[in-house]
């Protein structure tokens, strides 16, 4: 591109942005002569340059706009229509400029529409509206005009209230000196004298050289340290401080004031006011706060979304505001402050605040959360749902917002650069969105680790915690068929070895789980553990982009040079997840994840696959298993004909998975441990094979005691064991009667039990009996689901014992609703107590069955479905 043209484009783009902003301000202060003179000059400059470069379309447009503006200078009234017209003209100019930038020629087309109107107005159709009878969106101008009338001198009439800050920010950036308002070329002249344009690559190059200088300095300092009475000490000291200063200044060249990201906002607010019929003032503070330009680029869009949101959802209409006793004009304040390496930006409005009820209702409807969960959530937690993708509380989609894009974009963009977003509000008084973002992207905190004999950096943002797993500690690594899981407090975390992912493992070497650290990484809602050999320290690193030829590896996000001059690679947690995501066992559903969105469609179930007896492969629903243990055989004893093991200072009964098959004679005995309440029992197996996630589709029933049936798991017929069979073997008092199971006709059962253990245990039993089962943990969610799709369920099976909400509440809820009043309910209890039975009868619960009495349950289900069919017929 022609140098002259390029220069022109850069300058004109800037000028045009300025005119945009100045005009909005001017509209509010129509008697501000300084501002008018300035606007006139800006437009005039565009016109002049266009003429010089031979750009007729731009010239004609700017000429027409200039004529109209000069009418204002002669005292013509500044109307909203006129300002809108000029703003439209500026939009057109921008459009032409963009084409010019791409194709180096003005686009074809006519601007007669705009030019005609501009000249018509400029030629003094004085019949236009005057200031006094301006329409709605600009009442402020009308109200303020009389008082400001007496200010023809070039002194900016201070607008009332917070407008001051705004005016300050504007003035400091764009105003020529107040004393010499008429000096031609004021701004352009002053600026060009003090600054020059430098290519970005020049600055990047400088930055690189300075980094190198810093490294060399460090090496020199290190050398001098070994040499006690060195003559170098003095000069080195000076070199050191000069280097530090140089580094700081070069960093500074990359910085730009945040106001560059705010350029478009005054215009945006003006347009939104007109569109929404609201009256909003924009107050900007801290415009001079400086940020790395790379960061600045990324936060430009969020600002637009935030302003739209505040204007649309936050600020009320003038009438509403008057009704609640607020000034008719709403305010959106944006402020930026620099605090200890981060920039805090607040976008605050004095509107109605967040409506938590509405957000909660919407979150529930969208299936983002279950009702029980919602109850326990704080308002702050609920408010965070506004950052979910596609979330909106507005039922209609407006041009402005409500399409559910926006806030999630804000969060994504901010989190991408290692920042955070938070929202606070006072109902009826307004809301404030706070963003904390790093000053620069070029430097991030990273954890330096070693794996496979090589060092790597992990961005600190992704690191949740560091765990040192030890067999003796509560954090322990468990292996299932070569797949590792970390027991971390309440959860089993999938764990991968970094060296294995990177292909740095020596062939055939065994991995000792006690030898290393687990870096727990969090990515969105998922977390996983990364096993590394060593963990060093956290270091601020200068991120350098990775070469294009290495990008396809997709596991490194960049590289950096450490203090000692070594190059190390920066790991990208996202890439790691993608790489391991193909493995079948890496994602395990959260145990209590029962979001209604999964409702009637059948869930996949996680199975624990193991070997027992004569090498047969068997499985048990993972949810039913509390723990996997490996007992030293010496800890297992036979007492009174029963096998027991010492476990956590207690003795627990152990039952072989295949009746009569012997336990291991020496070494380690794998045991599946089941706990319910204070009772724990173990099932001894030969070998734990794997955890698989598959569709639970049981083919046949009752080949052998303790087997619910067989299912095809990963394409292989596998027997599913019935936990209910084993527990009574371990604890005879759990045992209940036995009767032949009565297979019922296929029907859908809603199973509600807060304990994953029982859900896991009953699910296969019910499936084996031919029922279609939807299992939920939350009673409120179950109620909502039953009410929504009352016809799709034949029976509800619910636990009636749990503390808090339980099957009784569910029964009350169901009966209160006409749609679900007829739905039979079967209560589940581990002990059949008279009081509970009494209450069940009073509530019209069809039957109450003991939890381990699976045949009783099957019978009750059959009766209930028949009963319902009879009632329905």
């Amino acid at each position, binding site marked *: 591109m022609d140098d002259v043209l390029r220069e022109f484009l850069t300058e004109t783009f800037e000028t045009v942005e300025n005119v945009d902003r100045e005009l909005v301000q001017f509209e509010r202060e129509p008697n501000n002569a300084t501002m008018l003179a300035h606007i006139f000059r800006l437009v005039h400059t565009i016109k002049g340059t266009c003429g010089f470069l031979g750009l007729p379309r731009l010239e004609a447009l700017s000429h027409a706009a200039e004529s109209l503006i000069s009418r204002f200078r002669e005292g013509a009234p500044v109307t909203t229509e006129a300002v809108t017209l000029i703003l439209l003209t500026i939009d057109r100019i921008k459009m032409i400029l963009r084409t010019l930038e791409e194709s180096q020629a003005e686009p074809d087309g006519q601007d007669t529409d705009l030019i005609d109107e501009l000249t018509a107005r400029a030629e003094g159709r004085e019949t236009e509206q005057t200031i006094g009878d301006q329409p709605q969106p600009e009442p402020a101008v009308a109200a303020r005009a009389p008082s400001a009338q007496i200010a023809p001198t070039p002194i900016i009439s201070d607008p009332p209230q917070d407008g001051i800050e705004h005016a300050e920010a504007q003035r400091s950036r764009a105003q020529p000196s107040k004393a010499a308002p008429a000096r031609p070329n004021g701004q352009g002249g002053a600026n060009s004298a003090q600054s020059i344009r430098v290519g970005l690559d020049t600055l990047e190059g400088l930055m*690189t*050289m*300075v*980094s*190198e*200088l810093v*490294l060399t300095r460090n090496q020199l300092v290190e050398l001098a340290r070994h040499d006690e009475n060195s003559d170098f000490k003095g000069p080195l000291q000076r070199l050191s401080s000069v280097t530090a200063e140089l580094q700081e200044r070069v960093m500074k060249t990359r910085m730009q004031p945040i106001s560059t990201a705010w350029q478009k906002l005054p215009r945006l607010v003006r347009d939104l006011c007109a569109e929404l019929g609201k009256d909003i003032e924009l107050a900007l503070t801290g415009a001079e706060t400086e940020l790395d330009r790379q960061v600045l680029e990324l936060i430009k869009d969020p600002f637009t979304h935030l302003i739209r949101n505040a204007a649309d959802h936050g600020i009320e209409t003038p009438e509403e505001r008057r009704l609640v006793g607020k000034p008719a004009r709403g305010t959106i304040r944006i402020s930026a402050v620099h605090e200890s390496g981060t920039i805090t930006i607040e976008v605050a409005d004095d509107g109605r605040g967040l409506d938590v009820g509405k957000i909660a209702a919407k979150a529930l409807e969208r299936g983002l959360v279950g009702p029980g969960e919602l109850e326990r959530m704080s308002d702050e937690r609920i408010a965070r749902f506004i950052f979910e993708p596609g979330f909106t509380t507005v039922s209609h989609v407006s041009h402005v917002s409500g399409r559910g894009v926006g806030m999630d974009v804000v969060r994504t963009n901010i989190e991408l650069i290692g920042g955070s977003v938070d929202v606070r509000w006072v109902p009826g008084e307004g809301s404030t969105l706070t963003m904390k973002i790093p000053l620069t992207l070029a430097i991030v905190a990273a954890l330096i680790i070693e794996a*496979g004999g*090589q060092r790597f950096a992990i961005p600190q943002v992704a690191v949740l915690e560091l765990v040192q797993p030890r067999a003796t500690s509560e954090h322990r690594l468990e292996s299932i068929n070569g797949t590792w899981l970390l027991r971390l407090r309440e959860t089993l975390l999938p764990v991968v070895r970094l060296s294995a992912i*990177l*292909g*740095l493992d020596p062939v055939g070497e065994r991995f000792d789980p006690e030898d290393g650290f687990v870096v727990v990484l969090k990515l969105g809602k998922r977390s996983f553990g990364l096993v590394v050999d060593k963990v060093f320290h956290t270091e601020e690193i200068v991120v*350098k982009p990775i*070469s*294009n*030829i*290495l990008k*396809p*590896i997709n*596991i*490194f996000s960049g*590289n*950096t*040079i450490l203090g000692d*001059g*070594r*190059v*190390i*690679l920066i790991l990208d947690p996202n890439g790691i997840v993608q790489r391991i995501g193909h493995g079948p066992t890496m994602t395990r559903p959260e145990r209590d994840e029962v979001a209604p969105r999964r409702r009637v469609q059948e869930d996949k179930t996680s199975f624990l696959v193991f070997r027992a007896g004569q090498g047969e492969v068997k499985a048990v629903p993972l949810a039913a298993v509390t723990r996997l243990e490996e007992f030293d055989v010496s800890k297992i004893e036979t007492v009174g004909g029963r096998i027991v093991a010492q476990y956590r200072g207690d003795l627990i009964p152990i039952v072989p998975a295949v009746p009569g098959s012997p336990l291991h004679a020496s070494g380690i005995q794998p045991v599946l441990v089941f706990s319910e309440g204070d009772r724990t029992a173990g099932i001894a197996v030969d070998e734990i094979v794997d955890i698989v996630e598959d569709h639970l589709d049981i083919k046949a029933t009752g080949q052998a005691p303790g087997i619910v049936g067989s299912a095809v798991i990963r394409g292989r017929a596998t027997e599913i064991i019935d936990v209910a069979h084993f527990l009574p073997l371990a604890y005879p008092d759990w045992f209940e009667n036995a009767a032949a199971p009565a297979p019922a006709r296929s029907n859908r059962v809603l199973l509600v039990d807060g304990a994953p253990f029982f859900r896991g245990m009953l699910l296969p039993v019910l499936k084996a009996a031919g029922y279609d089962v939807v299992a939920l943990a939350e009673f409120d969610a179950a109620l909502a689901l039953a009410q929504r799709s009352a016809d799709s369920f034949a029976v509800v099976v619910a636990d009636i014992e749990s503390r808090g909400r339980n099957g009784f509440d569910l029964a009350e809820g169901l009966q209160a609703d006409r749609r679900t009043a007829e739905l039979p309910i079967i209560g589940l209890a581990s002990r059949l107590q008279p009081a509970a039975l009494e209450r069940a009868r009073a509530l019209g619960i069809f039957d109450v069955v003991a939890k381990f009495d699976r045949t009783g349950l099957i019978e009750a289900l059959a009766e209930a479905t028949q009963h319902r069919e009879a009632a329905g017929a």
Partner: protein
Amino acid sequence: MTLMPRSGFEDVETTSETREFVTVLVDGQLFGLPIECVHDVFIAAEVTPVPLAPPEVAGLLNLRGRVVTTLSLRRILKLDDVDQKPSRMVVGVEYGGESFGLAVDGVGEVLSLGTAELQPNPINLDPRWARIAAGIHWLENGLLVVIDIEAILGPASHSEGARLASFSPSKGFQS
């Protein structure tokens, strides 16, 4: 270490256009890199290997604060890479705005060769060599293979390399 001063072969016809090459040695064979591509010649101190990278990537190294992705010319040519010396000569090359290094056995002088003298690749040249060779210069004391930087570092280079990796090695070009 900086570039060798320009010298040698002044007797080659200078009437027609000439092109200057930095000569490098790999496995006894002389190669020529167009001088306009070459920025530095240096000795690699510590190279950080890149796991999972294509085999020809030797690793990353720090050249005065810049991270240079280094490729082994020996591996690109699918020659044995076992007898690696601890420190190796690297030719710094700029391509597509990035810094690359080509690890070689040695760096020789800069030759100015007439463009008219450039011979096309012989048809019996090993395809893996032919892919990165832009022609042959016949010097008094041997042959010089002109390297096509684009073919080594260009976007198509790696998929191509992978495809060609299945060819059986033939030591056709050893004089």
